[in-house]
């Protein structure tokens, strides 16, 4: 494998990073909304969001990408493969992060909610200043764990036809007929992205477990 081939892989890597970043950031925003709705205390809303989460956790990401990709075209929204994948990953991330943060919100002791109500804090202030800072801290290791899942999940964009790292690997491998070298390097590139995150997540988990004792 020559220099040009490797540079082509790095170009794919750039798109993998971009997809992961967009999916994660917009997934965080939508996920926060899902988590808040899921814990809103309004029965029908809670049911609906629980269904939304179950739908995304019970089906393969690949199918979600397919349905979004063809579904958006169906309702008349013309989009690049790239934008459709970004939307698909955002929806996927919002469901998983919503569920992770729901757990975090529910793990904050009830007394905190009662105390902030007694202090006459508004809902917004109660969430922003009291509950969420604690809830997000509790769920930080799981959130980082999901980020790793999401980075790996972007590889499925290659099946929909978007040229990110894995598809770049496919193209190069078909050109130079060295699939093991190419996919070995592609795997290492993913590893370099994910491993520090995994280690950091495990470190946080140990730290929180120690401070909870």
């Amino acid at each position, binding site marked *: 494998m020559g220099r040009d081939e490797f540079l082509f892989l790095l170009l794919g890597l750039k798109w993998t990073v971009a997809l992961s970043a967009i999916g994660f950031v917009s997934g965080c925003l939508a996920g926060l909304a899902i988590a808040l709705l899921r814990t809103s205390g309004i029965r029908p809303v809670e049911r609906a969001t629980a269904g939304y989460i179950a739908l995304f956790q019970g089906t393969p990401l690949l*199918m979600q990408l397919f349905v979004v990709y063809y579904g958006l075209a*169906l309702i008349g929204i013309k989009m690049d493969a790239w934008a459709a994948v970004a939307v698909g990953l955002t929806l996927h991330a919002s469901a998983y992060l919503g569920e992770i943060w729901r757990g975090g919100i529910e793990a904050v002791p009830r007394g905190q909610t009662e105390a902030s109500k007694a202090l006459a804090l508004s809902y917004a202030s109660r969430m922003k200043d009291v509950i969420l800072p604690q809830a997000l801290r509790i769920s930080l290791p799981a959130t980082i764990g999901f980020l790793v899942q999401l980075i790996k999940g972007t590889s499925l964009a290659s099946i929909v036809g978007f040229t990110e790292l894995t598809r770049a690997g496919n193209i190069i491998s078909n050109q130079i007929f060295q699939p093991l070298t190419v996919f070995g390097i592609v795997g290492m590139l993913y590893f370099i992205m994910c491993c520090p995150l995994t280690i950091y997540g495990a470190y946080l988990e140990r730290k929180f477990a120690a401070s909870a004792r």
Partner: protein
Amino acid sequence: MNYTLDFTPVVEGLPSLLTACLGTFALAICGMLLATVIGIGGVVLRQSKIAPLRWLIISFVELIRNTPFLVQIFFIYFALPLTGIRLDPTPTAIIALGINGGAYAIEIIRGGVQSIPKGQMEAGLALGLHKGQVFRLIILKPALKAIFPSLTSQFVLLTLTTSIASAISAYELTSVSQRIESDSFRSFEVYFTVTIFYLVISWLMMRLFALFSARYFAYPVK
């Protein structure tokens, strides 16, 4: 936009889609069995007194957990023939699923084994059980019981991961639906229906695990 949904190709393809569901099930179950074997074996080696063995397992787990399944399955698909093993896509997919699920299973089961107090093992040995019996009955079974919920969700995830095996055209639901899609161009209708199928499959898997847990982990232990 004047698009009318047309589910006729889906209805016509229903028999082959339903059979493909069985393919997905078979792929998932075989993958899980292999993952469980790798998981338990890996935990034993991970506790070994020989340091290089422990490092080997740790690197294996981290390598698998930090790379995408799609890249793993391509790698295995191209690597196996080089070692002289010629396999069809479906067995290859089972091996890939087993290796991937196995790495996660090692971490999960290890957590369970570590949660068993040491005194329990010593008590077993003091009662005159063999080392193997102690491991199987006193360590492994309570450990599996303790971590069964995490193992269940990991294995439901493995079931959903089988869809990626379509990339090497193993026989399962996604690859069959892709064939129907490319014959009919009714992409949304096909994939929407198949998504519902997956939802049912993962729900059934969860029920299956709940049943298994109720039977196998019911106390008193016989």
